[in-house]
């Protein structure tokens, strides 16, 4: 019996069951905290027709940018997606549908999806294109928009450390969308820098409890930096 050992050793095992036309969430903000190996593995697998939920869409040749190269994304749901030229081409030509969502609303829609909340009201986007076609309502004299939750067939997230039971700890701003996406995926795969034994992570300090994580794989990370900004010492 496997009990709660969720560690897999190959990307094939990690992505088992992923099929064309599924909805996939991918963690990260820009190139910070993205599951690099899993993204590459989906590229290698060639899965197509994906609805991809991610705050950004990578850059040319790295991160989700490589899914664009193979035309693997049918619909992209994100808040800020234009850091690469190919994206622009696919978007303007209509090859790819793009649903722009305010970043906080995106985060909350994903959080709601994992938490069993089918919809919630938010003031964000009221009176803008984002609210078009959506129900609005006043509470205490202020206007709000009803936003439905998001869930995914697969969530690909990146963590710093995992134990074998899938408990996750993130590091600095590489946390970003990863915890909510972990909770909102039917199958959540965590690609991590280090796998430790149960008991090695402080139970008070676990960011994502293992109940949300189905598979854990140790990855290798390039951690490319988009805007290397420094000051002189």
């Amino acid at each position, binding site marked *: 019996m496997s009990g709660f050992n969720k560690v897999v050793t190959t990307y094939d095992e990690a992505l088992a069951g992923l099929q064309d036309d599924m909805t996939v969430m991918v963690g990260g903000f820009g190139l910070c905290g993205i599951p690099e190996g899993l993204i590459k593995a989906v590229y290698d697998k060639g899965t197509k027709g994906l609805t991809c939920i991610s705050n950004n869409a990578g850059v040319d040749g790295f991160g989700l940018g490589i899914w664009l190269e193979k035309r693997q994304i049918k619909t992209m749901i994100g808040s800020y997606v234009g850091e690469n030229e190919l994206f622009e081409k696919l978007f303007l030509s209509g090859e790819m549908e793009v649903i722009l969502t305010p*970043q906080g609303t995106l985060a909350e829609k*994903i959080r709601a999806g994992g938490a069993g909340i089918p919809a919630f009201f938010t003031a964000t986007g009221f009176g803008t294109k984002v609210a078009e076609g959506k129900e609005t309502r006043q509470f205490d004299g202020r206007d709000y928009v009803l936003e439905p939750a998001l869930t995914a067939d697969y969530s690909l997230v990146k963590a710093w450390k995992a134990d074998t039971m899938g408990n996750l700890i993130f590091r600095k701003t590489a946390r*970003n969308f990863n915890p909510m996406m972990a909770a909102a995926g039917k199958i959540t795969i965590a690609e991590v820098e280090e796998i430790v034994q149960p008991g090695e992570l402080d139970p008070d300090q676990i960011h994502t409890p293992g109940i949300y994580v189905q598979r854990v794989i140790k990855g290798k990370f390039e951690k490319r930096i988009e805007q290397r900004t420094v000051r002189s010492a």
Partner: protein
Amino acid sequence: MALDRNQIAQRVAQEMKDGYYVNLGIGIPTLVANYIPQGMQVMLQSENGLLGMGEFPTEDKVDPDLINAGKQTVTAVTGAAYFSSAESFAMIRGGHVDLTVLGAFEVDQEGNIASWMIPGKLVKGMGGAMDLVAGAQNIIVTMTHANKRGESKILKKCTLPLTGVNCIKTVVTELAVMEIRDGAFHLLERAPGVSVEEIRDKTDGKLVIPDSVPEMQFM
């Protein structure tokens, strides 16, 4: 003389209060951090999950896991905290951030703001801007008063797709500080050497001019 980018940032910095939690947008707003009055403490919130953003790192301190909302490498100050994007926007949407400073293409006399989309050009997305204008307790917009062709961006009614409605209270441009209320821009201050006439000429929206309009003061 019209203010330069740094002077606009400097003027905005005078709106800070000790103990404020502040979110600074990309561009001129980022420069505001350089002019926070001495002895005053503010904590900078970066919406990708950091409260207590510090200055850029020295070369040896660059950490790919530590960036700001503009995706630049940054540092964290003593007493900082990291959190998820959901927590970050809970903070913003829930009104816990005291002040947001952000840029705009246009603002109008109803307090509407357009800052994320120019039809016909590529749309990259609104990022966190819509959440910030919907959630912050106070919002200051920094922008130029008119575009390169001299057309006002301080309007009766925004022409571009909106980022938020009835949310902007204060605008700081290279020419003036204005407060938006009761469907008009109220001129509070003018840049040193800039005439009220120039401001009036470059303002399309309804402009309320008091008897006396003091010049901005810089230390």
